[in-house]
């Protein structure tokens, strides 16, 4: 970032120096995007916050501005609702830890693969699995994990088990789904960091007598921490807010925040309460960013 910033500053300066004009109207380029984001991003998010502070009125979508904390009081006074915060956070933390452990070796392999063809092939696999519609991937997972699915069906047919294992429509299924969906994001955020660790550091540790395991634990892993943490934050944000994973893999039995939001809005028309839960989900994710920054500052010793 620092290098990029300096480079672009130099660019702007030299441009002005050489031509004296020309790029003064550079800001015009960012006007469409800025207007678009203010009108269709900032204002909508603000109107949702406003709606969450309205008195409940079933069926009414528009924000009216009759200020009341009713929705939030209702949320935090009933275990059915407030417990779903802990459930959401626990599932998301579990997913981000599993994704980090699972994603690290693949990211390491891709970062150390110099052969251009092989590297591109692996990158295509990761990027394609990131960009493929999540619902399609969940279809595959559900066929694999369902009661009559490939795993249970085969095990029953081979008389290994008598009744199907509960692999889906529970918390386990949701975590598996979240890990599957978010793993490419974790891998991508790790590759850049691992590649930026200079190979000579590894060689120095080895030549000073460290075993490969020690080198990994004492040198590579600490230097990878920024990428691991950034990836975990991304996985947390994606897992905590995924409605479709919780709905399909949890089968409406795992009540996380996005399922509550959908339930309130789509089945009851309780837009104000739904907006309040959406606001709470938003706050949970913002808090995750603060936790990330605190942990990142500590692990990097102030290097970030």
């Amino acid at each position, binding site marked *: *970032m620092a290098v990029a910033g300096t480079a*672009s500053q*130099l660019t*702007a300066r030299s441009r002005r120096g*050489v031509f004296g004009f020309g*790029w003064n109207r550079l*800001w015009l*380029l960012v006007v*469409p*995007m*800025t207007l678009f*984001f203010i009108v*269709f*991003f900032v*204002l*909508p*998010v603000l*109107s*949702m916050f406003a709606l969450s502070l309205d008195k409940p009125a079933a069926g009414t*979508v528009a924000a009216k501005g009759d200020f009341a904390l009713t929705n939030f009081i209702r949320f935090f006074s009933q275990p059915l609702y407030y417990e779903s915060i802990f459930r959401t956070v626990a599932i998301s933390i579990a997913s981000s830890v599993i994704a980090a452990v699972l994603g*690290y*070796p*693949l990211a*390491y*392999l891709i970062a*150390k*693969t110099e052969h251009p063809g092989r590297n*591109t092939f692996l990158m*295509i696999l990761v990027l*394609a*699995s990131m*960009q*493929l*519609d*999540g*619902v*399609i*991937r*969940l*279809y*595959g*997972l559900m*066929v*694999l994990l369902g009661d*009559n699915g490939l795993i249970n069906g*085969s095990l029953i047919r081979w008389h290994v088990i008598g009744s199907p294992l509960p692999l889906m429509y529970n918390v386990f299924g949701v975590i598996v789904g979240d*890990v599957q969906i978010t*793993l490419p994001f974790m891998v991508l*955020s790790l590759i850049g*960091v691992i590649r930026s660790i200079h190979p000579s550091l590894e060689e120095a540790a080895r030549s000073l007598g460290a075993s490969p395991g020690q080198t990994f634990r004492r040198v590579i892993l600490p230097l990878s921490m920024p990428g691991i943490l950034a990836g975990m934050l991304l996985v947390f944000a994606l897992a905590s807010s*995924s409605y*479709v994973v919780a*709905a*399909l893999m949890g089968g409406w039995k795992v009540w996380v925040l996005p399922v509550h*939001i*959908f339930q309130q*809005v789509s089945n009851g028309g309780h*837009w104000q309460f739904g907006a309040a839960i*959406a606001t709470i*989900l938003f706050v949970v994710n913002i808090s995750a960013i603060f936790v990330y920054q605190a942990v990142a500052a500590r692990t990097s010793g102030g290097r970030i």
Partner: protein
Amino acid sequence: MSDAARLSWPIKIGAAMALIVLLLPVVIVVLAGLNAGDYLTFPPQGLSLRWVIAFIQSETFFDAYLFSLELAAITMVISTIIGTMASVYLARTRFGGAKAMRGLFMSPIVLPGIVLGIALYVFYVSTDIGLARTFTGLLIGHVLVTCPFVIATVTASLVGFDPSLEEAARSLGAGPLQAFRLVTLKIISPAVSAGSIFAFIISFGQFDLSLYLGAQNLTGLPYAMYISLRYKFEPTAAAAGIFAIVLVVLSMVLSSRLINLRKLVARA
């Protein structure tokens, strides 16, 4: 010595496990769509195109597929144009708030899609601007969630750009816009193309927004599959999935020809 040989076996086993987690569900969808039987068993009962044919004849899935393609194409054009313009600004400006602006433009990646969908719907209804449950309303949501991918791809290519090339064009008599068009745009055009492919694919697979911004005649493939998956595993849906998988893989192969995919993960 090949680079793979230098890596220890725990890394290789771990990487293989991650690849299995990533790819197994995709392989299962392909098998389920090409399976001869009514449902997928292991081992499969044999290959057949019956579900692929059923998909092409299916009003639900085929129409949804075409709708997703159309929406993704329009989204791609808009996001690419405004995203590229903003990227050029962000890469060149000296304005101190540019970092915050970039953060704002990138934030749809982490803002929950379900929250953004509700926020936009509430905004449309509250302001009564006639966008609720319309094509334009849905399109706006798709542009929001795809812009970050265009910006990330295009700014990555501008970071290593040598400004003296454009200055050379200027000193040879090109006007500022001409120099930009003939030099800078030419050089960053592979990244712009790759960014537009990303925008297309992200829009094509976008599900969360459709929950609140979609409507009866505004149903894309992800939503149609979600509705069907709630009740049963239709092999027709898996056949539709195959067409989406082919689309994504072809797009990624094309992007890899246009840009060095490694640049995308370079630490910004």
